[in-house]
């Protein structure tokens, strides 16, 4: 039961305790069945963060360390009181001078991020949380399976390990690079579903041949789906796969489903386009009875257009900075996905220095080689609307609205291609 494998440690944020923290991570991750190399990457990341925090916080502060076996990855979470550090210290660029590229090496968090596959910083109920993820290594398999030549009586089956592996091989064989890269690791797909973070529907015949399926990643309100993938009688089978997937979502916490890169087999009539350009598809899983969206006048028209196109009932409430006092410092969280070169920024605090801090983030992340930089602005949080001028100044442009992607809707902005700072 990998999902039950956790280790927890609470220790003072003092340099003398660093070896205990690193030892805990190293031993735990290896006990989860991961290799020494992966364990060392996570250990290094925690060492960087621990040192970074210990040097900047009062001696009486404590850090909670949680190591968790995620099945297809190991995760280490560092939690500490929000008031332990000044607000700006959490920014990945907090120690960087914009004039001095050498100082990038001083950035504890960015350095830590280089050794792991994902880094996330978030804040909730008075606590800061830094999360590192290192993916387990799996052999890549590109097995050529025989075509499904004869019509079978395909029915929904339990997504058992061997069927999921076969499904992955068939996805890779038919869809190639158009499918997410994890499908080239069938063992990983099986573990992703087994750990409960992903779900799958498979349609198989009586001989154990998988004819179609879909995969999805569970979120709190938002579910990201992949597919549909159909290897036989595509029109019919893809409808069966989509309907089975949607039935699985009924009476769950999921409010909506998004398909970032739908396949050509996606049947019409089940999803809506989120933007006129691009292929992102979306569907609500519940009745939407409206909410308030806070927006700066700069983005209000874009939001209104999106809501009109999606028939979404929203009261767009204008928010502008009108001289009221703001926190001196801003803080942004970065969710980095290094293998695909994507980073998503979100706001933790909106302060007076938002514009320069945002610019620093963009500069540092580009320097780190991230090719896709997104900003997710939560329209359910009024203060975030005030970031709009800073976002425009940093080169972000509005792309689409992801309904119910946060406390409210998420306005997705992307850094303009070729934007240089």
């Amino acid at each position, binding site marked *: 039961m990998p999902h039950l494998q956790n280790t927890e440690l609470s220790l003072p944020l003092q340099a003398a305790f660093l070896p205990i923290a690193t030892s805990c991570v190293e031993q735990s991750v290896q006990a989860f069945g991961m290799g020494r190399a992966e364990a060392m990457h996570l250990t290094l990341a925690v060492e960087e963060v621990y040192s970074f925090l210990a040097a900047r916080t009062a001696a009486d502060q404590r850090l909670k360390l949680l190591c968790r076996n995620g099945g297809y990855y190991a995760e280490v979470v560092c939690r500490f009181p929000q008031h332990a550090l000044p607000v700006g210290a959490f920014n990945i660029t907090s120690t960087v001078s914009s004039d001095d590229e050498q100082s990038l090496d001083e950035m504890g968090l960015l350095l830590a991020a280089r050794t792991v596959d994902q880094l996330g910083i978030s804040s909730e*109920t*008075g606590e800061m949380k830094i999360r590192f993820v290192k993916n387990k290594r799996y052999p890549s398999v590109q097995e050529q399976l025989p075509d499904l030549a004869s019509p079978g009586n395909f029915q929904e089956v339990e997504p058992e390990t061997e069927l999921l592996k076969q499904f992955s091989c068939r996805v890779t064989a038919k869809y190639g690079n158009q499918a997410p890269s994890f499908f080239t690791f069938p063992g990983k797909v099986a573990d992703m579903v087994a750990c409960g973070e992903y779900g799958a529907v498979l349609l198989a015949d009586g001989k154990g041949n998988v004819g179609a399926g879909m995969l999805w990643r569970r979120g709190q309100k938002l579910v990201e789906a992949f597919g549909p993938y159909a290897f036989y009688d595509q029109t019919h089978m893809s409808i069966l796969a*989509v*309907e089975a997937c*949607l*039935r699985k*979502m*009924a*009476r*769950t*916490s999921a409010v909506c489903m998004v398909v970032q890169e739908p396949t050509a087999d996606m049947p*019409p*009539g*089940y*999803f*809506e386009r989120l933007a006129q350009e691009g292929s992102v598809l979306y*569907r*609500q*899983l*519940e*009745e*939407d*009875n*409206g909410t308030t969206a806070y927006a700066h006048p700069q983005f209000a028209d874009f939001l209104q257009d999106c809501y009109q196109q*999606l*028939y*979404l*009932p*929203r*009261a767009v409430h204008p928010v502008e900075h009108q001289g009221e006092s703001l926190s001196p410092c801003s803080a942004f969280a970065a969710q980095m996905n290094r293998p695909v070169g994507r980073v998503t920024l979100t706001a933790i605090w909106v302060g007076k220095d938002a514009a320069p801090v945002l610019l620093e983030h963009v500069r540092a992340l580009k320097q780190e080689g991230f090719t896709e930089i997104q900003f997710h602005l939560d329209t359910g949080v009024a203060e975030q609307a005030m970031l709009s001028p800073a976002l425009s100044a940093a080169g972000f442009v509005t792309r689409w609205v992801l309904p119910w992607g946060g406390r409210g809707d998420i306005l997705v902005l992307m850094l303009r291609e070729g934007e240089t700072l």
Partner: protein
Amino acid sequence: MNHPFPPLDTLVPRHIQKIEPYIPSKPDDVLRQMFGCSVLYRLNNNENALGPSPKALEALQAIDPVQAAVYPSGDAYHLRQKLAEKFGHSPDSFIVGNGANEVIAFVINAFCQVGDNIITTDKTFAVYEWVAEFSGYEARLVPLAADYGYDETAMLAAVDARTKIIFICNPNNPTGTYWNEERLRRFLDQVDGKQIVVVDEAYGEFVDKPDFPNGMELMREYPNLLVFRTFSKMFALAALRIGFLAGQEKLVDVIRRTCVVYSVNTVAQQAALGSLLDAEEHVARTRRMVGEARRFLETELTRLGLAYISGEGNYLVIRLPMSDTLAYRKLMGQGIMVRSMTGFRFPNHIRVTLGTLPVMEKLVEALGKILPKNGA
């Protein structure tokens, strides 16, 4: 001083942590404002468009507001007397609850303990499943058969030593399918008294078929049978929240131990008593309205090229060539509120309440406007 937030990870049981609260729809005035419509026709909750019966209205008008200061009859004494008289059982064979939802909870809590399960279907009234799950019991969902009816073979196959209750919604919400008396008897014979069988007849009064079983009579023969009825649907007292269960006294005595007394207010009890006085005329009038609406809608849906599932009850399910949740939003923009069916495991279907003809005409007009043109 900042007091620490309670440790919800440890305080909240695991089965509650997994559950999302049910968020009911917003009030009509808020919805009209949100969707920019001046009127709103509610076709989402299977309410009776004719409203309460004349005798129920009289009973409501006769209530002295000063009575608001006095507790209601804690066990709906007079109403149980009247129900006993109407159905020919003893008053102690009835438990009146704050809507049928409350009596569902009474029954589940009376019979289930940790490790037990209940059996229901995947596409039916959700409350059996919800109450079981938030109470920490497994809800086994047996798929409906291809004809959208209950599959008795599969239901019996799902029974094990920890199965305590089997729920049959008859007629089924939302498909309108029903078990006739012969089929229900056969099922009860096969269960052979080993589990409690609940027959939910929330929409039973809408059925005008000679073979439709009368649970109130069958419970004389089957001591494991419980029957649910409500005043919300046919009797149009949905706002007052009142329903009841009936069963043999010995069985009902067990359930009474889990009941919350005083949960049904005086206004609801008086209105329900009034409803029983002219029930026959009210039922006949409502059946006529529902029948006309069904015939009209079936014709119009065929003209629009839309498939539908139409059985008993005051509702009908329509298959759409688009997302039902998108259809919901588009129809709301035109002042028509329907039930989107993804949550009932019927993606791209909506359920509509059968009401008065002018409103059915508005529904058809609105559907015509939202359907994709040329199959796009």
